[in-house]
Structures are given as structure tokens and as C-alpha cells.
């Protein structure tokens, strides 16, 4: 079970997000573990997030993580705290962090699933072939991300952003497949995926 969210951690992350505190940008010359300490303020210890709408990073595929870090650096994906955090990253930094993230343990899913709703979500995942690109266990592969065990609120937010074309993927795949999927179905897919190991 994920540990409870500590108010202190949430405040520290909020500070980063709002830019209220000096941002301790990772300095070069330190180990990646040391530099990653800034990331876990929001993304959680071991990359398992305990903060709403902040994604877990553990077990993410390295090629996907690399593309996202690259997009944050180039402002192809917009989230100011992330755009700031990686703006001075070299290509090697991007690779180091994405490789590191991929080696962290995958997030532990909550065990509170309602069987009926899980079945609905699973049927939708199969109907819309989410499991085709994201792999049968939703663990992702290559440039397609792991969604198993990801935070439900982050998944739903992301799916809605893709569908509304607010978030552009590196390629067109997600906007492409989400067109016919209703908001309730997105919620059910997020519910199911977030509860997969």
C-alpha cells in the first residue's frame, strides 16, 4: 500500500510548483541519486507519487521518459515547474534521468478496486485496444508509457488533455485514438489502469 501523503511533502511540492521557494535545480557533478532528490519532492520517494495529478515515475519506460524530458526542455510539453527544472539539462542529463527512472520500482497500485467497475474498465481497455500499444499488462514498451499503477487522477487528467488536444503527444497516436471515447469511458479506463500492478 502506498504510504500516506505527508502535509510537509505536499507543501514542499506546492512551493516548487508555485515557484515560491528557490528551486534547487540539480547540479551537475553529483550522483543521479542525489540529483533525483529534487524530483521526489513532488514525484515521491522511489518515484511513487502521493500528490494529486503528479505522476509516478517508477518503472516508466526509458524511451518514453526521455521523450517527455526532451519535450519539457524544449517546451513542447508545457508545465512550468518541469520546464524550469530541466531547462539546462544536457542531452546526457536527459538520458541519465530517463534511464534512472526506468530502473525504479513500478508504483504499487491501490487495492481498493470495485470489481464491477474494474470489469467495465478492463472491457474498455480491450475494446479500444489500449493493451495493444501499452502492452497486455499495461506496463508500456519502448516509447509507449507504462500506465499500470499510475495515479488515477493523473491518468484521467492526461486522457482528457489528449482528447481536447490541450496536450500534444510527441506523435499523433493518442489524439487519434481518443476521438470516439466518452468522458465516462476515460474515467473507467483510468480507474482500471491505475489499479493494475
Amino acid at each position, binding site marked *: 500500500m502506498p504510504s500516506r501523503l505527508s502535509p510537509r511533502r505536499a507543501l514542499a511540492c506546492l512551493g516548487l510548483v508555485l515557484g515560491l521557494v528557490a528551486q534547487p535545480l540539480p547540479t551537475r557533478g553529483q550522483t543521479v541519486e542525489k540529483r533525483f532528490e529534487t524530483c521526489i519532492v513532488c514525484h515521491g520517494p522511489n518515484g511513487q507519487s502521493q500528490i494529486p495529478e503528479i505522476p509516478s515515475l517508477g518503472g516508466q519506460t526509458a*524511451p518514453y521518459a*526521455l*521523450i517527455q524530458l*526532451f*519535450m519539457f526542455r*524544449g*517546451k*513542447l510539453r508545457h508545465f512550468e515547474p518541469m520546464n524550469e527544472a530541466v531547462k539546462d539539462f544536457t*542531452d546526457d542529463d*536527459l*538520458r541519465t534521468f530517463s534511464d534512472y527512472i526506468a530502473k525504479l520500482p513500478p508504483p504499487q*497500485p491501490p487495492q481498493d*478496486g470495485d*470489481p*464491477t467497475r*474494474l*470489469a467495465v474498465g*478492463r*472491457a474498455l481497455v*480491450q*475494446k*479500444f*485496444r489500449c*493493451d*495493444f*500499444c501499452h502492452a*497486455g*499488462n499495461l506496463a508500456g514498451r*519502448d*516509447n*509507449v508509457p507504462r500506465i499500470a499503477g499510475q495515479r488515477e487522477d493523473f491518468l484521467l487528467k492526461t486522457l482528457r488533455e489528449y482528447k481536447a*488536444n490541450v496536450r*500534444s503527444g*510527441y*506523435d*499523433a*497516436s493518442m*489524439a*487519434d*485514438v481518443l*476521438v*470516439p*471515447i466518452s468522458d465516462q469511458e476515460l474515467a473507467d479506463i483510468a480507474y482500471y489502469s491505475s*489499479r*493494475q*500492478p
Partner: protein
Amino acid sequence: MRNFAGACALVLGVACTIAAAPVAAQQAQPLPPGHPLIGQPETAEAKKLAPVAPPPIPTAADKLPLDKLKVPAGYKLETFMAGVPNARTLRLGDKGTVFVSSRLQDKIHAIVEKNGKRELKVVASGLHRPNGIALHKGTLYIAELSQISKIEKIEDVLDNPPKPTVILADLPKDEAHGWKTLTVGPDEKLYFQVGAPCNICMPPERNAKIYRVGLDGKGLEVYASGIRQIVGMDWHPVTKQLYFSENSRDWLSEDIPEDKLNRVTQPGKDNFGFPYCHQGNFTDPEFGWGRKCNEFTKPIGLLGPHTAALGMRFYTGNQFPADTRGQIFLARHGSWNRSVKLGGDVVLIKLKPDGTMASLTPFVTGFIQNNNYVGRPVDVLIMKDGSMLISDDFNGAVYRLSYGAGRVAGR
């Protein structure tokens, strides 16, 4: 089914996912119209196939696969510029600047020569899928996913270019096949396509067409219809007819349909058959019922199944041997919807006197090694000295192909 899944999920999450998989395979549910996986069979081999995303970071100059790429005797291939992210369409300015577009990233780059050294400059950024670019009388035209814009006198303002001015907005916003090819015709109008927003579907009214519009963005009209997606157009140097490569549908078979080489002979009237007829000789298993292929304009050549025939140019230079003059060089990006990859080369297409395809010969090869990509060619550009540039969006690089004495001019 529902009960089984629910109980299973409750008790043992892991075992559930595994145990449920074969059940899913047995009961294929219909996909919504236009879904990219329509037609994909429920077999293990088919499930291995997915589009290949290029790495976002360009390959370092010393790691480019030049040693693996093969060219015919007498030709030489070298690096023209490394570090051009997601290098796509190539265009040449009057003053010698090479412009390079991107599909997945947001920038247009210029490669300029300064004191004998090549430099890369960003001339536009913050763009959305800016795949299509064209140069005409000093103006750079940019086709993004849903709009066309321009920067005048671009080669005079390379160090401090203004933001592009939009001349045509509100094109369809479909991401699928939304990226565009842009060219200026002999009539000094812009030509571009709005692709089919799907692998195979009945396209909406505005899609699956080639349009032309004035350089001021006025007078938009349909030039041709029934096309799926185009990533290469050029004008025959003598007949001034529009030739274009067209990518055919996926998931029908490993071996059909082939991508097409098309030619517009009846502007405004030609319909190339999508989604009813493929490669000019067989009807679609879903949309083709009740239709005949002879209702449509046939391709003038077939370019291989799933090979992703992209950028093309008529060779109008003087450097290569005489038998290449007036013929077509075309980049085949290479397949993803095929177990054994095909394409991944630049081909020479020779034409018959009537302008249809006589032969297709792989010319620059080796982008596929052991069924994996080491690079993927996208576009070709004939330079003033007759050499030819080739873009590679997988490595983020531009190569230069030269022949004979022209080889000395390169570096």
C-alpha cells in the same frame, strides 16, 4: 465474462491480467470507425507491429550510420549536417540556404554557409507539426497541421526572423495524417493536402484531398481527391504536371496494397480512389463493395507495400550521369506494418516517354540492418551543383550525395 473478470481482479490482480488475455483474443470487439487498428488481426505476429518512433535527440555526427549506407559506384555519400532534430522536408533558398522542417518537433531550421563553415539556425519555433515547407521568390511558406503561414525575405532575416504571418487558417485539426506536404506550382499557387484522418475510413468532406490556394491565402479550391496521405510532391520539369507519392492503407496484408506514384492530369477532377480502391486494381474489403477501380484515376507506378514512399524530386541537375536527368529520386521511409521491413532507401524511378513509371531501382540503401532501422530517409533536394541532399528524421541528419568531379566540392 464480467463476473469472472471481477472476481479475478479482486483476488489476484496479476494472475487476472494474464488469465484474461486469451479470452480477449477470442472475442474481438468492433472498433469505432476510423480507429487506427481497424483491420489488425488478433494474431501474435500482427501484434508485434507498431509505428516506429524516432529518438527525440539527434545522433552525434560521429555515430551516423554512413559506413552502413551503400551508394552506386562513382557516387559518394557524406554528412552535410548533423544535429538537425527530426529532419523532414528539405527546401533550397535562392541564396543557397537549406531549410529543414520537422514533423514531431516545433521548429524550422536553416543550414547556412558562413566562412566555409555550415551553421544551423532556428528560423521559426513554437509550430505544430510543421512538416510542409516551400520557398518561392524569397518567401518561406510553412504548412502546420491546420494552418499555413509565411516569412518574407527569409534569407535576409535569418539572424532575427519575425514570427510567421498566417495566410490560411482553420484547416482540419485531425492529428492522424494531419501533417502536410507543401509545394508551389508553376501557376505560383500553393499546393497541399489534407490527409485521411485514419488508416481506413470514409473521410469527412474536407479530408483526403489536394488543395491549391493563392500565395495570399485566397481562392482555396480542390485540386484532386480520393487520396489517403501524401508526403511528397513535385512538378514534372517539362509537362508541369503534379506528381505525388501516396501512402496506402495498413493491416490488409503484408504484401498489399503497395504505395503509389500518382500524376494529376485532370486538375479538379482526378479522384485517386481512397477509400474505395487500392493501388488502382483492387477494391477495399469494406468500403469497396459496389465500386469498381476503373471509376478512379490509376497510379502511374507502384512503390512497394507499406514502404512509406515520402519525399520526391525530379533530377534537374547536371552532376549525375545523363540517364538520371528528368527522372525521379524518391525517399522510402520504410515500413512498420510489415514483419520483414521494406523500403528504407532512396530509389531512382525512371519514366517512360508518356510520363508513367518504367522502373524503380534502390539507389541509396542500407537504412535497414537486420530488420531494424539505423536511419530513415524522408526527403531529397537537388542542389545547384547537381548534388543531392537526403534528410533522415531518425538520426536528425542531412546527407549529401555527389557524383564524379562533384565529389570534390563536398567535404
